[in-house]
Every structure is written in C-alpha cells, then in structure tokens.
C-alpha cells in the first residue's frame, strides 16, 4: 500500500485515491484538424515508463482534489507532488512544452502542446546517460 502525501490533507492510504494516468497530456489545440491516427494517439497512447513517471491522482475520499505526482514505477518511490498545471519539477527549464497539461486552468489550451507524449520517454534516457557513460 502506498502512503500518498496529499497536498491538502497530508499522508493518506492509497485506497483513498484514484489514479488518473499519465500527466501532462495536453488536449489538442484543434481536435477537428487531427487525423484519426493523431486522435487515437492522443486518446490511447501513453508512455510506459520504467523509472520516474509523471502521473495524476485524485484524493477521492478526502479533499477530492487532483494533483500530479512523480513516482518511480520500479521502486514506487514518490519523488514529488505538485499542482495540476505546474511543470514537471524534475525538468524545470528543459523545455517550455512541459507546461502543457490537462489542467482546467483557463489558459491551458493556449500553453498546451499537441505532442507531449514523445517527451515522456526522454527522461529515462537522459537520466540514464551519465550512469551508462562510464563504459
């Protein structure tokens, strides 16, 4: 059982939460202009990260608020909790595209990016590079 630190309520059992899937998947700016392939990629394609993964959670039986979490999918270590709409804290300054999220904020459609999913796999390669570079 995970002990999840809700930003509003403090640490609570995992059973009080629901998982919301990968974070930072921006709603397409012009859905009508997407091909079926692009639309299906937005709807159904998610990265299957081994390692640090940005994901959404909601504290269903507590404050009922959504938040983002960085979690290691191997060790289950919760590395960061941050608000919906905020950029990934472990990638601050790397790319402006990361500000795009599924946030309900009024400006979320203007800051969103139509292709965030490809960046979801880049972290493991960039963070793994220094370790493997000694070979």
């Amino acid at each position: 059982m995970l002990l999840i630190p809700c930003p509003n309520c403090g640490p609570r059992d995992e059973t009080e939460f629901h998982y919301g899937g990968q974070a930072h998947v921006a709603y397409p700016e012009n859905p009508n202009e997407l091909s079926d392939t692009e639309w299906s990629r937005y709807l159904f394609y998610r990265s299957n990260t081994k390692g640090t993964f940005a994901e959404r959670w909601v504290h269903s039986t507590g404050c009922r608020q959504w938040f983002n979490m960085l979690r290691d999918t191997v060790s289950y270590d919760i590395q960061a909790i941050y608000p919906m709409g905020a950029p990934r804290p472990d990638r601050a300054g790397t790319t402006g595209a990361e500000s795009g999220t599924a946030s309900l904020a009024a400006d979320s459609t203007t800051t969103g990016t139509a292709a965030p999913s490809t960046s979801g796999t880049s972290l493991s390669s960039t963070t793994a590079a220094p370790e493997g570079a000694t070979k």
Partner: protein
Amino acid sequence: MAETAASPTPAKTPADKDLAVRTSPAGVLRDAFAAGSLAGTVEISELPFLTMVGIRAAAGSDAAQRIAAVTGGLPARSGDVAGNGDTSVLWLGPAEFLVVAPTEAHESLGGSLIQSLRDALGSDAGQVVDLSANRTTFELTGPQARSVLEKGCSLDLHPRVFKAGTAYSTEIGNIPALLWKTGEESFRVFPRASFAEFLGRWLLDGMREYASPEVP
C-alpha cells in the same frame, strides 16, 4: 387515523405528518444500537435528520466571506471545524465545506439557516445545497470508542495527533465517511445514507469484543 379526529390537541401541520413518516437511514438499527452499547465502555447511537448543507465557495472570495458571516467562519484547512453555537462547518476541500446544524435548523421545520446561506452566496459562483438527506450521523462515545474506530480507519487517531474539535474526510470500514472528534471520548461518524446500515453493523461488530472480559 381515528386519534387525529378525536384528539383535542391542535390539528397537525403538514410538517408534523412528514416527521411522523420519515425513516432515518439507520433506523432499523435502533434496537441493535441499544443492545450493542456498553455503558461506560463504548456506546453508539444514531443522531438522525441533522441539517447538513454543502457549501462550495472559493476561499477568500466575497461570497465565502458572506457565508462565513452566517456560519461563524469557514475552516481554513484539512481537519479544521469552524462554526458558532450549534452550527458547525467541516472542511471537505479547499473550496468545499459541510455545514452541520440541528434538525430544527432545516427549512421544512421553519429554520432559516439554508435560506440565509443561499442569500449569502447570492448569484456568485459557488453552491449552497441542502444535503440533509445525504448522510446520517452516528455518535460513538466512551473510552473504547477510539479503539473501535481504529479497527477500520487508517488515520492516526491517537489524541496527540487527532485532537477534539477536528474532523476528516476519510475511510472507515472501507467506506468513505467523515469522522469528527467532538470530545476526548466522543466521535461523530457521517456515512452516506446508502452505507449507513453497513457501517452501523460494522461498528457494532467492532464493539462486540468489549462486552466480554478482557483476555489477558
């Protein structure tokens, strides 16, 4: 029916008739609660038909301030309970609160609380919703009340953490419920109506062991 015709007492109002026929969500457990309560150890009862009002208003907004003036404050963070006299406000979320007041505060009994809250919100963004039928209230009291709750609640209920006068939205017996510690040895548990009988029986089951002598 015959008694109303023969009775010399004033004619019953429509509200009186409604009160006579209403059934509380855990009403079927009234006898079981009485039988399962252990005086001086742990006792359970239902406090049916409390007036409850769901509030949604952004913290710091004008509407929130007007509502706070009616309720005697709005709680600021998780666990906080605000209020004034017999009206209490439980924190449910950053912009969501539950007002709990006595039965008589309900507008069907002539109370003005809900309408005052509606007036306070006005046409601003937010909600004032009568949720009196959404949940019922269990009162669990006695020196063993905490240990009964600890069987099915993962919050730290030790008094050094869980202070009297605080309330949390959490899970008890695997169902969502609000838990309000009203005194050092008294708790109010608010299950939704559809969970009330389940949770009532669950708590009774948790109380059973205290009816027997402690096994050393």
